[in-house]
């Protein structure tokens, strides 16, 4: 069974190569069917492996099993979290392929296979990153994920915004990747190893952490946190997620950003958690600080958006902030909670993007103000969008609610307030959009730009060749299934227990915690939903008081769309990481 682990990467890559080789010979439906079949096969494989992953697999690529505890090969880790992420990535790829079925704009002539092939390569990269147990191998898949994602983001080359967002994304993420590689170089210099566990052992053998460990930690984390879009590394995310084709947005927000968080968890747990690494209090301080900043800034910026996809992108920033806090506190219960939260969030967020895509293709706009009351006819989509908003708020029994309540209980104290507030504000923004666009509630907002410093959602072109007069069934079925999946995470009995078991088996030193609904958690979930509803209602009825865009102008000005600014922020972020982690290392 272990031997099948590399197939998670090999199958999508082979599928992509076949699609490109045969893409010009076959008609488009065949190419898309092949794409779906390959993605589905990989997803099935990931699920089968996941179900058998207790105890976790360790596979040595190329059959280089260790001799005397040391190997020259690459190790792959097939544990619950890794395979879970691979399965999630594969399922979402399948959803994205199904969503883009037939509908997506005419592919370049003779390149029927190029869009599905890029999606499959993206999937291969994500799966490879999820199961990587070797730091350099993780870097390679990180880059593949990046390269495929840049090309997919800029795929609509006729859109001025799309190519700009893709370039920003590509430059910032590549810089992060090179920082990661510098960190790998430092770790290799110290330990002479590349396997994550081997590096961890090497650091511990060297004794107390010093400046080298700190620098390596900062550089590696910079790379991963750029992917995870922690503040102040997050600027690329709204620019890229707002402009990417909808199926790609589903993947970017649903799983790629979360893989950055997963990478932080994996690398800290295997490399830096020992006595020779970064002490737990320092890690906790660093991650909780950056995560809290991301949650606050993401939520505030989300509230002030009128471009619907951009709004959803900021809510992703806020939620990854919450995930980072959960990972940062280093408690087994929090890990379980985050795993569930992440699964629930992926379904809800991908569904919301899918609904936004329907609006774009039907009305040629994703602007909340311009669309006021125009989508009354789309009853089904309205229901899905509202359900998505409620799921984002954490309404029981959504998976998000279960994950959030478990995490809240683990982090405790003022951080609980942050969880409730951030999820309530982002959900309120989504519900506000739902109320205005689908129900036509409240006065029609003025169409002009408020401060002039904002990105409106008008002037976008539909992704389909023509504006849709009728929504294809696949485009509504996909978000419906995704919302149902998010519900299932919270409802299916025993699911939470299985997730908790497989997360705790590898992380948190085998301490098993349980994850289940508690009265307090349900109440907090209801509370944040109520808050979200009230906020949304107030915003719709009193737009002047509650949605004046000039309130947070200084914050909005930071999001300048200028790639040089974002690079400068990456440098500052790395310094901040270092400053936050430094105190504990000085003490010893």
């Amino acid at each position: 069974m272990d031997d099948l682990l590399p197939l998670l990467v090999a199958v999508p890559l082979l599928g992509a190569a076949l699609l490109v080789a045969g893409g010009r010979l076959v008609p488009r439906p065949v190419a898309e069917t092949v794409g779906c079949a390959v993605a589905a096969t990989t997803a099935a494989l990931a699920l089968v492996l996941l179900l058998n992953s207790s105890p976790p697999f360790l596979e040595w690529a190329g059959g280089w099993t260790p001799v005397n505890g040391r190997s020259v090969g690459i190790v792959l880790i097939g544990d619950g979290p890794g395979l879970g992420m691979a399965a999630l990535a594969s399922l979402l790829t399948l959803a994205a392929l199904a969503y883009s079925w037939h509908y997506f704009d005419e592919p370049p002539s003779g390149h029927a296979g190029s869009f599905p092939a890029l999606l499959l390569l993206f999937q291969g990269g994500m799966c490879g990153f999820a199961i990587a147990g070797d730091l350099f191998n993780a870097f390679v898949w990180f880059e593949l994920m990046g390269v495929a994602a840049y090309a997919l983001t800029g795929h609509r080359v006729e859109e001025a915004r799309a190519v700009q967002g893709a370039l920003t994304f590509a430059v910032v993420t590549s810089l992060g990747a090179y920082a990661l590689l510098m960190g790998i170089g430092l770790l290799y210099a110290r330990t002479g190893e590349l396997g994550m566990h081997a590096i961890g052992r090497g650091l511990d053998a060297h004794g107390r952490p010093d400046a080298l460990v700190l620098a390596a930690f900062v550089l590696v984390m910079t790379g991963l946190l750029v992917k995870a879009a922690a503040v102040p590394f997050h600027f690329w995310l709204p620019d890229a997620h707002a402009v990417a084709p909808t199926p790609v947005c589903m993947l970017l927000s649903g799983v790629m950003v979360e893989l950055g968080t997963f990478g932080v968890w994996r690398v800290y747990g295997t490399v830096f958690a020992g006595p020779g690494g970064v002490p737990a209090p320092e890690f906790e301080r660093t991650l909780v600080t950056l995560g809290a900043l991301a949650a606050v800034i993401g939520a505030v910026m989300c509230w002030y958006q009128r471009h619907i996809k951009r709004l959803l992108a900021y809510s992703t920033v806020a939620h990854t902030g919450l995930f980072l806090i959960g990972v940062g506190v280093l408690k087994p219960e929090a890990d379980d909670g985050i795993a569930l939260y992440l699964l629930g969030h992926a379904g809800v967020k991908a569904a919301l993007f899918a609904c936004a895509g329907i609006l774009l293709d039907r009305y040629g706009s994703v602007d909340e103000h311009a669309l006021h009351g125009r989508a009354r006819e789309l009853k089904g989509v309205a229901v899905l969008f509202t359900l998505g908003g409620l799921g984002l708020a954490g309404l029981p029994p959504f998976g998000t609610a279960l994950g959030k309540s478990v995490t809240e209980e683990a982090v405790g104290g003022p951080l609980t307030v942050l969880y409730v507030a951030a999820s309530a504000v982002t959900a309120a923004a989504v519900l506000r959009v739902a109320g205005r666009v689908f129900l036509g509630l409240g006065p029609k907002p003025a169409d002009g730009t408020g401060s002039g410093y904002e990105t409106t959602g008008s002037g976008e072109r539909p992704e389909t060749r023509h504006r849709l007069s009728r929504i294809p069934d696949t485009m509504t079925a996909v978000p419906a299934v995704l919302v149902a999946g998010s519900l299932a995470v919270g409802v299916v009995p025993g699911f939470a227990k299985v997730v908790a078991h497989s997360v705790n088996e590898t992380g948190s030193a085998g301490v098993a915690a349980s994850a289940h609904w508690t009265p307090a958690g349900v109440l907090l979930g209801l509370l944040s939903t109520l808050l979200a509803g009230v906020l949304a209602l107030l915003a719709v009825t009193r737009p002047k008081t509650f949605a004046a865009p000039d309130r947070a102008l200084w914050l909005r000005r930071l999001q300048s769309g200028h790639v040089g600014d974002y690079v400068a922020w990456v440098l500052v972020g790395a310094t901040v990481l270092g400053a936050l982690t430094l105190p504990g290392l000085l003490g010893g």
Partner: protein
Amino acid sequence: MSRRFRLWLVAVGGAGLAALFTAAALDLPAFGGDHHPYGDRAVHASLSRHTANVIASVNFDQRAFDTLGEMTILFAAVIGCGALLRQTRDEHRATPEPQEVARPVRRYALLVLPVALLTGLYVIAHGQLSPGGGFQGGVVAATSLHLLYLGADYRALERVRPVALYETGDAVATSAYVVTGLAALIGGSAFLANTLLPYGTFNTLSSGGTVPLLNAAVGMEVACAVVVLLARFLDQAVEIEEGNGT
């Protein structure tokens, strides 16, 4: 954000990172040190599998899984550039006017072309023995083909370079790499394990088991990929024009 503010950010961030990195450099083992456990194991493993060039052994045997990722990145970039630099609906193709090239340049280019091409192929073939291999040789071979642009003209280049064929070649080479890996898995060993073929006599062309096979696949992939990448950019630079007035 003003330029001045950005410069301040760069100064603060850069200074912090520089200080951190300098402190780390002082803690690094001194340059030229003797502690390379993984490297020593890799040398040993390479010799045990009769591969003379240890780097080829690391790339195509011990860490062949990394190379799979690397060649896929190149492959993804080729598809990505194809999609990004496609001819859009508002653009048309203009036939480039033939350009005058000085006779000595032309003669030089046509003379060097076969030499460079052969050098590339030689470098690919000897990957497991001497410095070089699929990557280096592939790039050299592909770039040398473009001397034809200098030596003759763009049309001549287009004739020997049907992009579609090279793109297919790229995909086939990538699949060949994956299939070689799968063959080992089906043969009862692990994915990409070098157990299918005999390791051969040390320091000969056929030594190293599957190393020469994977090396050749990478060579073909890189050569095709570079040809296609350059073709996309040449296309944009020379042929594709935006339709004005349409």
